[in-house]
């Protein structure tokens, strides 16, 4: 029997905190925005907010894929290289081969999908751990970038291509913002409302139980890894369009940033738990943090220290939450 408690504010709050999966990141985000606004009143200005959203849009595209990979209990370290490779192939197709822009973009995407498929095949059909398989792919893709470009950026890219990223919605919202948010919403709906999404959570929770319950492990995992490759290449191509150049060094360390955003957003690295909404807020938080640190004139070198601390704190918060849930709902015989 649940004890009748006064519906005081604190009780309501702790109930919300424990039962809403995204509560940790929402809390962090609100506190952070308050703090950043006090330190720097122009933090919440329209221009700055748009900037933050634009930057997080790029991260978010990869975060969408990475969240699914983490939820299914996998890992993909190759996304930064795939991101660069797709941008490079797309750039080379446009300039050196003189292919039409849509065909070039398609070529970049196909490369990403192929990389994802190879990752998937390795993870699904061999006993190589995902971390090692995708680390190998990271080197291969980055190596291909160096070999094809010989370290020289592809520059300049055609104007029509560069214009894609600078398209604006309602006159001032960069196209990447609605685009990435729509992607995230689609992924959120897939994860929470479809059989496929339920299978992803089930595999991450207990792979063997999921298999015995009739879930096609191989198919589900393959789909997720291919999707990740596609999303990473999409982000890379968009970034090339923004920079007007396909840089060989672009995307280095992207995988860690993306994992960091997903984990801050409440995605469990051991699989089975987390929501797309949380991951989305995680991506937003990462960029808001970068933005305000830069505005506060804290050097890039110190920024990484802050990221590390935030990552550890957010996981601690999540763990604390989980032990609280366990204490409150476990009643063993």
């Amino acid at each position, binding site marked *: 029997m649940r004890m009748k408690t006064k519906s005081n504010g604190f009780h309501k709050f702790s109930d919300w905190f424990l039962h809403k999966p995204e509560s940790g990141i929402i809390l962090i985000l609100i506190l952070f925005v308050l703090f950043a606004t006090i330190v720097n009143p122009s933090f919440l200005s329209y221009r700055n907010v748009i900037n933050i959203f634009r930057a997080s849009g790029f991260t978010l595209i990869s975060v969408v894929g990475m969240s699914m990979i983490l939820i299914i209990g996998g890992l993909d370290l190759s996304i930064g290289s795939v991101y660069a490779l797709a941008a490079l192939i797309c750039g080379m197709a446009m300039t050196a081969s003189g292919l039409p822009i849509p065909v070039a973009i398609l070529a970049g995407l196909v490369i990403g999908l192929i990389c994802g498929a190879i990752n998937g095949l390795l993870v699904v059909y061999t006993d190589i751990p995902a971390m090692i398989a995708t680390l190998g792919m990271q080197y291969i893709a980055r190596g291909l970038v160096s070999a094809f470009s010989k370290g020289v950026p592809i520059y300049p890219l055609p104007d029509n291509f560069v214009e894609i990223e600078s398209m604006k919605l309602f006159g001032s919202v960069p196209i990447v913002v609605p685009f990435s948010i729509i992607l995230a919403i689609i992924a959120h709906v897939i994860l929470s409302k479809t059989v496929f999404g339920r299978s992803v959570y089930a595999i991450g929770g207990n792979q*063997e139980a999921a298999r015995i319950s*009739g879930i096609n492990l191989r198919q589900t995992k393959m789909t997720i890894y291919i999707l990740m490759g596609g999303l990473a290449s999409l982000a890379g191509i968009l970034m090339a369009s923004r920079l007007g150049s396909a840089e060989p060094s672009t995307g280095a360390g992207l995988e860690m940033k993306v994992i960091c955003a997903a984990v801050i957003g409440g995605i469990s690295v051991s699989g089975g738990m987390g929501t797309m909404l949380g991951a989305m807020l995680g991506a937003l938080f990462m960029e808001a943090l970068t933005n305000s640190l830069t505005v506060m004139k804290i050097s890039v070198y110190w920024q990484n220290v802050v990221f590390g601390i935030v990552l550890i704190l957010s996981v601690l918060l999540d763990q604390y939450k989980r032990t609280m849930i366990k204490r409150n709902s476990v009643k063993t015989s």
Partner: protein
Amino acid sequence: MKQTVLTVENIIKRFPGTIALKGVSFELYAQEILALAGENGAGKSTLMKILSGIYSHKEYEGKITLNGKECQFSGTAMAENAGIAMIYQELNMELDLSIAENIVLGKYPRTKWGSIDWKQVHIEAEKALSQVGLKLDTNTIVRNLNPSMQQLVSIARALYRKPQVLILDEPTSVLTEGEAKKLMQIICKLRDDGLSCIYISHKLDEIFELCDRTVVFRDGEKISEHRKADGYDSSKLIEDMIGRRLMAMYPSRVEHIGKEVLRIEHFQVPHPFAYGKNMIEDVSFSLRKGEILGLAGLVGAGRSELVSAIFGAMPRNTGRIFLEDKEIQIREPYEAIRYGFGFLSEDRKKNGYIWSMNIRENMTLVNLRSMVKKLFVDAKQEDIVAKEYFRRLEVKAPGLDTMITSLSGGNQQKVILAKWLMSNIRILMLDEPTRGIDVGTKSEIYKLMQELTDNGISIIMISSEMSELLTMCDRIVVLGKGVIQKEFSRGEADEVKLLQAASCT
């Protein structure tokens, strides 16, 4: 009057929304084996978690006295040092360490330099092993031992810590009957050597044979106490446990057996760990509509591997499957499910349920596809179906949103069963469906099996409990040494014959 070793007074343990223990008191005397009996959820395990220090002294009310001294544990190490050792239901050992290391783990003998004294480690380990009647090479890796050996090693580990009280939680659940007998002899000997034991078991025959005194728990309260000296009355004890008059444990079996549904031919299943060895050499059998077929055999006879291979959960070397005389291909579980197979696995935690999901999601895992409306899962439909089975199987939980990990074993089993019942199965394979489950739930599961066969569903049941096989099954196939040793129809077999066939004598 015997000397009191352990006194437990007025223990109250609250969880939000429920009280697991409502002021429990009992004593444990020197050189005594005390049984704690009760259904799942009666509060036995909670009490043991308090005694072994898993719940710290701040988390409950009441008093624990060991040898006249009040104890306040805030961790298992403290309880161990005070002299309370616990053997858990699920074996928890470091499988890839040697026997010796497992025994001394956390309490290594040291040389005067402070490094581990390996010579002493092996001497101590041998000493501990001899107390449980084992003579083994202490360098053996624990993974290579069979479950009963592992169980004995875990007892040796507890004994190495020189406990005054040894708590055993369902120690025989992974053992065969012969192995369990041996274990019980060892426990008796330990008692005669001066140890006091608390023994938790669902198996009443074990309690009757082994325990000097039995305390019955129900709903967090101590209900009654029975002494071996006064003679145990099993129906009285069961009544106290379940709190209502005991109906017949087994339903009366009504058979309507039809035509052959399933036939498997020449199955050969490789050993999951030992390369080149086969678990099943050559097995063929058939199953008819509405029939309950029992698979008997010792632990390690390959029964689980055989059904797993039929279901596609394990690979097979050879073997053909015929469904209503048509050959079918099954390589993965999802293919088996398409043909109407269901499989309740032996180890709930390992491959039965998904810990990160709640009751509803676990229930609808197999059948979710049928609840899709225009691409999306129809949440309302899912809720209706899950609720129906939640009620029908009388799952004891606050609601469908409760996480499955917070349920007792019997209720978890009901949820997993519901998963198969709601999908269109024709053949259900049950691997030890009543292991570690209380008497009340057991009886419900038997009734359910009868209902299923009434509806024309065929069942293959693996069980290590002879009485279960003998009363529920229409036919029993005994496996041993990778082949079928014998086949009995209903009424032909008895416990002796089954055991003889299983041990290949």
